[in-house]
């Protein structure tokens, strides 16, 4: 049967796509638009948005000039840089070590990804216990050397502790993606390199990593976005302290919304975080866009 070339045929894809588009608009775009709108109003939790509460960009100006907001953003950027870098190095390194099919490897890989499956709030509670100065296993082990660091009571150590926790939880995510990427590499490229006399390190440096680059870029992007939005772990471990030393931006936003109940202020901070996240993501994609590399 000859397909019709009329209006019906041209509309068919749009009709099929329409439900998904409508859901996207209401489910994703509507809250973002509402957050933008709310960010211009000085309203508290539970209050109606009224014209009298309109403050315009004054809320943004106040938020951006607030030293605690600036410090919180600085902590977030430091945290994101540290954890993403370490997770990428460890995750890719582990994937390179464990890509070969060895005996018991399936069990080992399964164990390795377990941390990623635990709810972040539970991870925070587990590591809060691990780092507990008196009853935590870490200090119990360190007592052999006669030291007893107050992990969560010293600004530098607390920052280190939340980084370790995030790295423990999300290195497996990098590992899984890197492993999938490695297993998708055409073996003929590796064989060719071997025939040319490349050493294992040279194969990694000049064959595997370049072929893995598009996947790694997406992985970095996903981890960066996640790290910038980190909340639950610090909430459970330190509540942002000591001082503001571990107050990630999402925790700051949470406190603005639910502790001080300034919903407009909180929405303005959320918009700022969205802008920062989008800008960093755009920079990364401009630097190396895996889709563009494939000519799509």
């Amino acid at each position, binding site marked *: 049967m000859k397909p019709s070339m009329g209006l019906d045929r041209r509309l068919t894809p749009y009709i099929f796509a329409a439900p998904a588009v409508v859901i996207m608009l209401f489910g994703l775009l509507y809250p973002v638009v509402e957050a933008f709108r709310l960010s211009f109003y000085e309203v508290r*939790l*539970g*209050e109606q948005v009224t014209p009298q509460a309109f403050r315009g960009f004054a809320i943004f100006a106040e938020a951006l000039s607030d030293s*605690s907001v600036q410090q919180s953003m600085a902590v977030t950027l430091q945290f994101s840089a540290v954890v993403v870098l370490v997770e990428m190095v460890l995750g890719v390194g582990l994937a390179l070590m464990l890509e070969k099919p060895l005996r018991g490897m399936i069990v080992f890989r399964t164990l390795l990804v377990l941390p990623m499956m635990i709810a972040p709030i539970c991870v925070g509670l587990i590591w809060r216990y691990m780092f*507990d*100065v*008196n009853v935590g296993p870490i200090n119990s082990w360190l007592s052999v050397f006669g030291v*007893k660091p*107050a*992990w*969560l*009571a*010293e*600004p530098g150590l*607390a920052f280190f502790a939340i980084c370790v926790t995030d790295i423990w939880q999300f290195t497996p995510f990098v590992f899984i993606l890197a492993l999938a990427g490695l297993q998708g590499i055409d073996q003929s490229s590796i064989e060719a390199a071997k025939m040319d006399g490349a050493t294992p390190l040279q194969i990694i440096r000049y064959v595997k990593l370049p072929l893995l680059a598009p996947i790694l870029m997406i992985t970095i992007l996903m981890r960066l976005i996640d790290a910038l939005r980190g909340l639950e772990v610090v909430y459970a471990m*330190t*509540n*942002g*302290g*000591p*001082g*503001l*030393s571990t*107050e990630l931006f999402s925790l700051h936003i949470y*406190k603005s919304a*639910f*502790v*001080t*109940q*300034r919903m407009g202020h909180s929405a303005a901070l959320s918009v700022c975080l969205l802008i920062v996240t989008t800008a960093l993501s755009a920079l990364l994609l401009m630097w190396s866009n895996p889709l563009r590399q494939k000519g799509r």
Partner: protein
Amino acid sequence: MTITRRTALKATLGSALTAFPLPYAAGAAGTDWSKLKGQSIVINWPSHPHFDIAKKLIPEFTAATGIKVELDEMQYLRMKDAQVLQMSKPQGDYDVIVYVIMWKTEYVQRNFLTELAPLFANDALAMKDYNKDDIITAYLEGLGLVGGPRGYLPGPGAKLYGIPYGAECSVLAYRKDIFAKHNLAPPKTYDDMLAAARTVKEKEPGMGGLTQRAQAGHQVTAGWLMHLTPYDGLVIDNKFEPRVSDPAAIKATEVYKEFIDTGPAGGAAFDFGQCINSFLQGQSAMYCDSISIFGPARDPSKSKVTETVGYVVHPKAAKYSGELGGFGLAIPKNSAKRDAAFAFIQWMTAAQQDVRVTAQGGQPTRWSTLDHPDVKKIYPVDTYRECLKIANPDWRPIINEWTEISEKVLGIRLSEIITGKAPIKPTMDRAAAEIKTIMTRAGYYKT
């Protein structure tokens, strides 16, 4: 002072509240709760030792009244968002809320709570044997009254919006064995307490002097407040000007930091649970905080020091001043089951239930409970009465902005100070400026 406050309270509540005879027998004697039978109420309930004990009585309430109860239980500092959201709706899900003292003024100013005096005046609803005069005065005034001087103190204009339940004052607990070992007397003053803290830190390896709350946010502010008013300091004065960098407040901050420095390892990040556990597990020689320690300190499953704990009144610095805090029960204005909610509040806070909860380790609400033989056997009742005498209703300013001041200003700056990251005076000057900004934004200085 006490007489004035009581007089003001009586004037405020009116004769309806003063007419309830003792004692109360279980059930709804003399009241007409029969029409409430079959109703179901929802209560926002904290996870807290006192309330863990109290909730065991709820099936009895249902059996006695036919009113079913559903608890929405959560960590106590998390309750506020849920309560505000529910009470902002035309009709909320909660029929009773358990509120923390810090929230009472804000809730009333936002028109969230039902005034209780008219309900007590309703003969069909009020239990005939409910004696409000038996409720510990400081608790009833501190937790229940709103609208008086400064918006939250007892006095002219104050009205009753809640009944204290799980209320608390502060006490100093100390290790009798450790004090005896080093020839230390139970502290009567802050100088005694500081000297003891230094001695313990120096001479007891692995043990700290005083355990305190200090985690960034609400906890560090709560820890600092333990010393602020004893040194005659204030957060804000009667003109709502910040006073956290005044000499008295600076002295209190110095003392707080010294207690952290001579305290248990890691104490600068303790929340309340870690603070109390440090003492109960033998890692600290002193604890100066809520009387909620009385129950756990006797419980061998929670305490390693059951036989060696002594109690004295919160020591004197510039003056005697103790904490007044804890929880109260209130009825949201948008509850559709106000009468059943009121029945629940009365039943739970009646004398008989209060004794039973206290005897199991809960916190007493009534004077008569302190006189009960079962309670006297397990509670240091005399010390408790002394602590109540100095419980300060102006322990912290219970204004709408208090949560923001406590968590986002003091909760950060004090944390920076105790971790040695920031010098005391400039940091408290900065905190004062930040509080001023909040108060200005809230319109306190309009002429």
